[in-house]
């Protein structure tokens, strides 16, 4: 018995050590980014290079520059506006689609479902050329409204697919009870489905937020003005290939732009996992 316990402790310690070692590699790039953002700009090509800045060198001048320039605020607001609108609209639209597909038979339902699956498979970027033509025709180039509907369209397939799975777990008897009481499809949707599928919708929304928050190629193509740039474009804008790249600024802005994502992640961890695993375990 004692021997077994000893073996167990040894195994646990070994695994913990192994996981910690792996963790160093996994989080090292992030730590390096934060430490670089705290270095003065002149120290970037020092020799020998340091992983952490010298204690007396630690500075927030990069952050002061980023925040003081005032553009950061604009970019931040743009990212929030785009992400939140995308998330809210996509949640409603995809929930309605998922609900209808899970519960009803209608003309072209199978076709719609196949099409949704298909667009999940095709890389979104392959559509960038005709979508650009569309954006030109809609006169939304250079505007935030040129981002939001496209983002919504991109996240709908995955969201619908996931929410449909969640709706299927809600017992049909609940719907029936509403219909018997004379309720409409809308009543069922808003009173039963939305509240009960909320964890599913929440988990999908977190992913949609992440997608919209970090989207780069489309925003980079559509947006021009500094005042309308979202954070990813603002970050890449600091970065000229052969000019003098101020890594301190780049990383300070990066750290700032990661904060909202980190907050969402920490507060909504449970939904994250729920959203990831429903599709996978059912297979």
């Amino acid at each position, binding site marked *: 018995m004692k021997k077994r316990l000893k073996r167990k402790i040894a195994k646990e310690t070994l695994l913990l050590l192994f996981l910690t070692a792996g963790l160093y590699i996994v989080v090292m790039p992030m730590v390096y980014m934060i430490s670089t953002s705290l270095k003065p700009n002149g120290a970037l090509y020092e020799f020998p290079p340091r992983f952490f800045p010298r204690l007396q060198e630690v500075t927030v001048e990069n952050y002061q520059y980023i925040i003081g320039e005032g553009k950061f605020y604009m970019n931040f607001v743009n990212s929030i506006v785009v992400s939140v609108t995308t998330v809210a609209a996509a949640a409603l639209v995809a929930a309605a689609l998922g609900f209808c597909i899970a519960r009803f038979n209608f003309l072209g339902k199978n076709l719609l479902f196949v099409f949704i699956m298909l667009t999940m498979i095709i890389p979104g970027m392959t559509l960038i050329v005709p979508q650009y033509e569309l954006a030109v025709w809609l006169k939304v180039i250079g505007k935030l409204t040129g981002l939001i509907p496209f983002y919504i369209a991109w996240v709908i397939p995955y969201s619908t697919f996931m929410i449909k799975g969640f709706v299927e777990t809600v017992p049909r008897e609940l719907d029936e009870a509403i219909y018997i009481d004379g309720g409409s499809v809308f009543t069922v949707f808003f009173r039963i489905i939305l509240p009960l599928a909320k964890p599913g919708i929440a988990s999908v929304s977190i992913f949609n937020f992440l997608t919209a928050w970090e989207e780069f190629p489309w925003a980079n193509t559509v947006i021009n003005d500094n005042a309308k740039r979202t954070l990813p474009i603002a970050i890449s804008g600091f970065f000229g290939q052969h000019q003098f790249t101020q890594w301190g*600024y780049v990383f300070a802005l990066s750290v700032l732009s990661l904060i909202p994502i980190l907050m969402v992640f920490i507060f909504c961890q449970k939904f994250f996992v729920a959203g990831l695993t429903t599709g996978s375990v059912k297979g």
Partner: protein
Amino acid sequence: MKRGKKILVIIMAAVIGLAALTACKKSPVISETGQTTKESAETKKAEQKTVTINFWHHYSAQSAENATLEKVLIPKFEEENPGIKVNPVSHEWADLHEKILISAKSNTLPDVARLDSAWIPEFHKMGILVPLDEEMSDFSSVADGLLESAMATANIGGHAYGLALNTNTKILFYNAEAFRKAGLDAPKTMEDFVNAIKALSGTNENGQTVWGYNEPALAGWNLCPFIWSFGGELTNPEQTKASGYINSDKTVAAIQTLADLYKAGAITGWNSGDIPMTDGFGTGRYMMLLEGPWKIAELAGAYPDLEYATVDMPAGDGGSHSVLGGEDISMFNSANKEAAWKFMQFMTSEYAQTEMAKCGQIPVNKKALENDTVKKADFAPFLEAIKNAKSRPTVASWSEIDNELSVAVTAVMNGEKTAKEAMDELAVKVDALLAAE
């Protein structure tokens, strides 16, 4: 446990709801007018219509030029011209070219842009530039105040498709301390230059690699000084044919020399992982560079203790020929012409040109050139070098030729092809591009 979950959901919903609310409130203001509420309030007070002109440029976002533009010039212009706002947008050089092509397609061009003079023929061919001499009644009085040689870069078929904004060329910057220690003199000939590059490359006391020379890219802007100074050419004088010129022995020799130096580990700079030019020169890792006047201000700001000097492009069989650079400020045909023209006049005025001269932009305004501040700036060697500098081909397909050239020379540098093979293949491609002009 359950309660915690519920609270979480409520918080989430509240955050999303709140954010959505602000989104509804804010997005129309930001996305439609492109101005802040504060600005429109001011406008109402002034009781007149505000015109916003978009000005695209490639002063890099963190440069002194950009700071001067945004903090000195534009405020001054807006003060002098109530009712006109300028929205400056900085793009990286290559991005600006790309963005203008795309925007032309989507009818979202800016009003005014600062363009590399090498792009003017291409944009003219696309039909997006305004012929200023035809449209602006006071054109000649403005143009007369600017250098004729610089104005020529915007002239196609007798019409002016822009105002000259600044002119430049590249000269050789070298690390004076290192030259002294190695007992070397500033290189005058191509032979001296190659020898100095080889002599100065190696490792420093920290065991870090030191390169004799840095070239930050392999485009025409970078290669032409070598090709011309070796006595080579890109095209025939009529700019209709490349075969026999771009693959001539002398052009090939220029490319081969650079490739040999690269192979010997003596030059670098165009690779993704290389140290940026200014930092490398400032920290003594690159011993020489071929650069323009802006580098002086940049070095003074970032590496004030660096001991360096400048000299003309080393002379080869073809003499000493640097590449003529410079930018024009042009108006697109979708512009608010009246406001745009005012801004263009302002940017080429003595005041604006003198301010920009402080950050290393050589003025083209004749009065500004006589200004004391400008005379004090160290432009003399550049103005001297401009006399022997040559223009890159002034053809509409230059950007495509430039790109093909860059790809071809990259292959030579990486040892995939010999210079002769690569340039022979390139000549066929460029011939086709020129034939389609």
